[in-house]
């Protein structure tokens, strides 16, 4: 699966199709090294800060770049603006706001303002409430979408975006877009990474 295809599939999983021109602008917007101060076009400042915090908590920087370093929050900002319909964007942002309010209710402050222990307490709680989604085949859903909470759905999207950035998709994971032959079984070591394009 090409990165472009992977991105389309990610969009399809969310129920959207991407036109070539939209895709081109999204591809430009993601993968750039970014700093904290960026201007969200579709998120409010507060939403953007929470999205960035969430990205960083789910896929943090380790000895490899995290979601924040690879521009995932900016991608999501473009994505909701350029791919979602107005009605869907409104619904998505409402869900995000509800999620943000859950943190305020639980920790007394916005997620981005939480210290590490408060963040962990809230996200552990959200993680525990999330329903896992198991792979069906050919478009069949194993779990109805509404059984996953916002945290779970956000995680899915974030992972797809992160691993289809140029850096994660081509450098962090072994990238072999035209594998040629099929090797049905070989032995791996504990360091072996999964294929970028499974």
């Amino acid at each position, binding site marked *: 699966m090409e990165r472009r295809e992977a991105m389309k599939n990610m969009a399809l999983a969310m129920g959207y199709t991407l036109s070539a021109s939209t895709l081109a602008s999204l591809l430009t917007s993601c993968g750039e090294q970014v700093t904290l101060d960026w201007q969200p076009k579709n998120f409010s400042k507060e939403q953007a800060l929470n999205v960035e915090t969430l990205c960083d*908590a*789910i*896929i*943090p920087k*380790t000895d490899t770049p*995290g979601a924040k370093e690879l521009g995932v929050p900016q991608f999501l900002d473009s994505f909701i603006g350029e791919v979602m319909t107005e009605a869907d964007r409104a619904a998505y942002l409402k869900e995000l706001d509800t999620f943000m309010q859950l943190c305020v209710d639980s920790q007394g402050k916005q997620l981005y303002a939480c210290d590490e222990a408060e963040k962990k307490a809230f*996200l552990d709680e959200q*993680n525990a409430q999330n329903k*896992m*989604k*198991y*792979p*069906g*085949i*050919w*478009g*069949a*859903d*194993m779990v109805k979408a509404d059984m996953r909470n916002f945290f*779970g759905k956000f*995680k*899915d999207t974030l*992972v*797809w975006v992160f*691993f289809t950035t140029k850096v994660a998709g081509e450098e*962090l*994971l072994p990238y*072999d877009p035209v*594998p*040629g*032959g*099929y*090797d*049905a*079984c*070989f*032995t*791996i*070591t504990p360091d*072996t*990474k*999964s*294929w*970028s394009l*499974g």
Partner: protein
Amino acid sequence: MGNDSDQLGRNLMDHHYRVGAMGFIDGFEDKYYNGRRPNGIYIPRFRNLDEATKREDYLRGFGYQGGAGRAGFDQSAYTDGYGAEYKEQLMKPGPWSMSLVGFGEMLPDSSNRVYLNHDKKDPYGMPTVTFDCEFKDNELAMRKDMKTSAAEMLEAAGFRDVREYDDLGAPGLGIHEMGTARMGHDPKTSVLNKWNQVHGAENVFVTDGAAMTSSACQNPSLTYMALTARAAHYALDQVTKKNL
């Protein structure tokens, strides 16, 4: 003309699928693969073939398609947690899993139909097409068996955490459309004769899936191609003999 039977547009069918089970299997943790496997597995129909396999709850049957693989970062959806450990886990080959999906026969039903709707016109004043089609009781009963039998097989084969699924959807998702001009000897009950010619209009050949009288459970494209080749051969033969 060509529709004395009133069967044109009736008995619209598709396969019903998106039902089956998946499970995880332990072992082979140090084994992996590379490349694009061009196929999966197929389990041919095993129900209602003879007395021993006869079912009381539904007619006809289904086959399974499926495959096994190791998850990549798509294991995210069923990997618990978040943070550094989660990220590292997603970058390693995930668990082995196998999925079975049933493809079942949809029975012909004359109330499942497609027709020109003269009451609803498009912007150019042309009649629109109405698809009035749904899965009926036989399909719904079959799906229960498709789901539980898949789970039984996976469990018997040693899979763990086996999960059934049933995501019915609507006819058309299977993109194996069939029926609407069924083949038969009697012009009073069918649209096409045995050479895919329209009864009463023998210079018209219909050679796609419309000729099918029921949907069976196999992928139908090869059958369409065979029927088409056969009809084309016949047409050429008849033209040569100046019968057409």
